[in-house]
């Protein structure tokens, strides 16, 4: 197993606010790393900083051995990182088909075969192929956002709170899709729902007040009642 992504002491400012104040984490190839922490701890900003949407003001981000700290967002994405934002950000007046098409970096035979495979993970999308993104349900939008990131052969997927605002039955489908995606790619997942996080995560990084507090194997965190109570408020 090799290290795919490393953040070392990353600081990020948004306007006058010092949001990330020393985030360090690693993601091993083929694993799911879960970012945990309270609301406002800096989990979403960490993903946005990796993507270059809120560039790091100090510290380093290495991906596949390359320093990507200062690269523009599109170069980072083209390096093989897919991003599923917290608010899904589907293109509301584009159809499901167009949402996927705009994301596809290539449209050759292999890319179309991959699209077909992705649609087997999210069969609802095929049913609503010509429907505009804005007219989908919350769960369908989440699936479209994940399919859009997964339609390219990305090495790393950053997924931000995929269960947020979804009904339990939909969450189960989303989880199933993440488990399937895990077979093919490395994932960094932000997830507030601890049982869901524990169900898919191999490792965790705990962030509090913009700083990494602890990292380790997920099974160790599941057993550590003190850590969960202190930083996640789980009794």
């Amino acid at each position, binding site marked *: 197993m090799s290290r795919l992504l490393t953040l070392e002491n990353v600081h990020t400012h948004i306007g006058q606010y010092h949001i990330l104040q020393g985030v360090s984490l690693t993601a091993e190839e083929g694993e799911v790393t879960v970012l945990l922490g309270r609301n406002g701890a800096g989990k979403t900003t960490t993903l946005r900083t990796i993507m270059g949407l809120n560039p790091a003001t100090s510290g380093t981000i290495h991906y596949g051995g390359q320093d990507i700290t200062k690269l523009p967002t*599109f170069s980072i*994405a083209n390096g093989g990182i897919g991003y599923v934002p917290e608010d899904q950000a589907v293109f509301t007046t*584009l159809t499901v088909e167009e949402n996927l098409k*705009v*994301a596809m970096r290539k449209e050759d035979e292999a890319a179309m075969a991959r699209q077909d495979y992705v649609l087997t993970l999210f069969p609802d999308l095929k049913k609503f192929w010509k429907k505009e993104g804005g007219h989908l349900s919350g769960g369908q939008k989440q699936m479209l956002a994940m399919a*859009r990131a997964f339609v390219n052969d990305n090495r790393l997927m950053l997924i931000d709170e995929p269960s947020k605002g979804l009904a339990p039955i939909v969450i189960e489908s989303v989880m199933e899709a993440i488990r399937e995606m895990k077979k093919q790619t490395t994932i960094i997942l932000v997830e507030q729902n601890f049982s869901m996080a524990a169900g898919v995560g191999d490792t965790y990084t705990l962030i509090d007040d913009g700083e990494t507090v602890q990292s380790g194997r997920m099974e160790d965190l599941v057993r550590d009642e003190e850590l969960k109570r202190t930083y996640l408020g789980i009794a």
Partner: protein
Amino acid sequence: MDLLLNLTVNGLATGMLIFLLAAGLTLIFGLMSVLNFAHGGLFAWGAFSGVFFYGVTGSFLISVIGAVLTGIVLGFITEKLIIKPVYGNHVQQILITLGFMLVLSEMLKVVFGPNQIAAKTPDYLSGSWEAGGVILIKYRLFIILVGLLVFAVVQFILKRTKIGLIVRAGVLNKEMVQALGIDINKVFLYVFMAGAALAALAGALMAPYSGVVYAEMGLEFAILAFIVVVIGGMGSFPGSLLAAILVGLAGSYMAYFVPSLSLAVNMILMAVVLIFRPQGLFTAKEA
């Protein structure tokens, strides 16, 4: 009836010219959220370069192509030097593009002289046809056709091509487009150059229509184009077409029936639309 038809054809022709100018403006605003007051300057440069190339080559087609190329080059320079440093700041955009508009107008005087220049209509587009008592001026019909053709081509590009898809996605969410691996700054540049090319095309077609070109024409027509963009809905391409036709027709009818209101009619139209639909007739998301 004949009179009404004549006024309608005149109004449509004027509307199409305003549409060509407003089309670039609305594309630039829709995707880039840039208020480009220098757009009229690009229009005026299109008009002057069209007259210049026509004088040099004697070919109307080459003059239009030359004007469009001038617009593309000026669009490239404007985006790189003037617009890029002020992305995301509307106040700075208004100030710097208004200033650049004046620079472009003054540069016309430096290059072509301070006086207005006569613009000729090519022989094959001069004159008129008469059909059932209605006089159809060839050049006005030509402008209407070009306007419709440009609308169809741009709509085709926006709806049926990958670059059009990217532009439409960029209007909705620029950040997400970048996160999909697309260099949005490059897309911005292309859209700006396309908008400038449309402005220059409008200028080149306007020159024979009005018979003269003058340095201040940019500001004059830019105001009309802004009215059209506001009425049509900021960032909406079909909205601009509909609004330009409305403005063209209203101006044509009013100039004949109530001449004293012909200048005010555009403002009245804009006020009425804004009272009932503050977002304009369409929104960019409906486009």
